[in-house]
């Protein structure tokens, strides 16, 4: 099996105006793509809100994809969309806001027309836990209804709606995840396995994949060094950056974190999964790191450590 690796775009680089995303200008964006290309990434995942910027810089989003392809990429593989902060206009657990959310999703789908074939429409299925509390079964079912609805629409455009669960979201524990998947239609709603987020929430990502592999359409390979055992997931307004005890939640693979990536890799091989594998770095600059170095080390780890796990698993088949 040939693995296909994509990169999830959180990159920050040094500019004359301080550290900013490479969308700073076209030159920076070109260099960013070349850097990923040099390491051998073939897929590119991005956020919905970058689409207008890409259009501005390259003339159109497909023109940006052509630039990726000129540099050895296959295509844009995933688009990430989310409503992390609930407002009166948009909140997945509030049914009255669903029409608006669906309309937004349709707008995003129009923004990626003409691309070679984005596969995943990645969503955060809920807003922050603290805004959703109390998290009832009913609210989880309401959220399931929303994504069933969205999933049907994206599938018409060839994209699978796939759910990425934050440790601070309202669907975070294993029972909540099970209830959510029970109420979503396997034909319309898929599972996206973020190794670090699940680990922080006390959910074993490898077991999660084992149990939901039939619905799994992607991964964020990232690591963490902390499990949230003190309810930091409830920190308002934002647990990801403001948790009292943890300044940095996410780390690249191979830096002594809690996730057992070789085991996951073996599980992936054994399952016959043939979709994209994605490296995500989030806040890599905290504590003095850089995105470029984190990306090199992650890809080095893939080619030198995970490749070995993959070979072992393939031999065992």
């Amino acid at each position, binding site marked *: 099996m040939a693995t296909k690796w994509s990169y999830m775009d959180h990159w920050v*680089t*040094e500019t004359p105006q301080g550290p900013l995303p490479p969308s700073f200008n076209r*030159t920076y964006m070109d*260099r960013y793509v*070349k*850097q*990923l*290309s*040099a*390491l051998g990434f073939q897929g590119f995942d991005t956020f919905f809100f970058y689409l207008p910027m890409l259009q501005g810089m390259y003339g159109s989003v497909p023109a940006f994809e052509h630039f990726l392809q000129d*540099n*050895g990429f296959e295509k844009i593989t995933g688009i990430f969309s989310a409503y992390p902060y609930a407002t009166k206009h948009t909140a997945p657990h509030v049914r009255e806001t669903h029409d608006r959310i669906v309309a937004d999703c349709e707008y995003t789908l129009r923004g990626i027309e003409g691309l070679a074939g984005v596969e995943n429409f990645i969503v955060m299925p809920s807003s922050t836990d603290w805004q959703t509390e109390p998290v009832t079964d009913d609210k989880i079912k309401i959220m399931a209804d929303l994504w069933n609805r969205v999933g049907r629409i994206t599938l018409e455009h060839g994209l699978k709606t796939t759910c990425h669960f934050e440790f601070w979201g309202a669907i975070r524990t294993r029972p909540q995840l099970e209830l959510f998947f029970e109420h979503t239609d396997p034909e319309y709603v898929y599972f996206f396995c973020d190794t670090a987020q699940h680990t922080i929430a006390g959910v074993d990502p490898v077991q999660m994949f084992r149990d939901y592999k039939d619905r799994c359409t992607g991964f964020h390979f990232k690591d963490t060094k902390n499990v949230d055992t003190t309810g930091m997931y409830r920190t308002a307004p934002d647990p990801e950056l403001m948790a009292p005890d943890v300044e940095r939640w996410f780390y690249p693979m191979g830096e002594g974190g809690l996730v057992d990536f070789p085991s996951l890799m073996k599980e992936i091989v054994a399952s016959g999964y043939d979709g994209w594998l994605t490296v995500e770095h989030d806040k890599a600059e905290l504590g003095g790191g*850089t995105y*470029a*170095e984190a*990306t*090199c*080390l992650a*890809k*080095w780890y893939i*080619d*030198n450590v995970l490749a070995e796990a993959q070979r072992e698993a393939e031999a065992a088949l």
Partner: protein
Amino acid sequence: MSAARWSYALNQWDTNIDTFVRKREHERALKTVSISGFSAVELTAASFGAWEPLGNPRQIRDLYGSVAAFGEVLRGCALDGISSYVYDPFIGFDVEMGRGHDPLDPSSAGPIAETSEWFAGTVRELGGSVLVVRPVGSAWQTGPLDDSQIEVLANLWDAVGRRTAALGVELALHVDFLSALRLGDGLDRLLAATDADVVGLALDTAELAVAGMDPVAVYRRHASRVRHVQLKDAREVVDEAEAMTPHAEQFVRTEGGRRGIERWFFEPTDEGGLVDFEAFVSALHEHGYAGWIVVESDQSPHPAESTMVSGWYVQKRLAPLLAR
């Protein structure tokens, strides 16, 4: 396939005395170089004691236990080894931060040869094949070199070359943009005066370009003597008058001269600069160049990014020119 091999210079990580000291920092840089598509690294000789642990064989040994153990680290990071060491004889290694020897002083020949041998042995042990040296001081210090000075230099480097050759390591003279060899036909005369079998040229594209020389033309003129290539870009030229500024190393190279140039050297890319890399590498191909090509950024606000951008350019644009 070409016999040329691609290496990357580590010096850009070493921005100050107390940086790039920990093994962990080395390992991260080495993995970055490896995954960006290079097979070796170039080291630069430095004398700042324990704070320059890759600066000389003694410091490598002190930090890693032995040179061989450092070789294991390189291979553990998926690199083949080092390509080369860069040694400036003006730096002394007898004491930390010591002052070295002026190649124009005939009495320097012994100590310089000994130190060269010391480095060459390490190059060999770490899988490399070239010792790159600064053959002479800066233009402002010497003015144009007269025949007797050329003779002193030729005697020195011939002797050094014979000794490194005995260790299986080639000697390559490096011309920087402030070098005395930029004046008149100094470079041509020194090459003519040295033994082609044991003394070669290390051609640094950016240094030549800043000195106002066309690296492609220099290469074509001396292709048979080029034993080593360093690839980097530049955007500004330093003319002879500016190069003659007293203490030009500080006032021009470090401070940027009257123009306040904050960065002289850039990664080889197609973003525009003084060097035509594709023409240069095509010329290497024509002449069947078979040595190391070391990519340098030398100065970078962001070493990992520079390595990756260069890696892209090598993989996508330059290496294919050699593989024709």
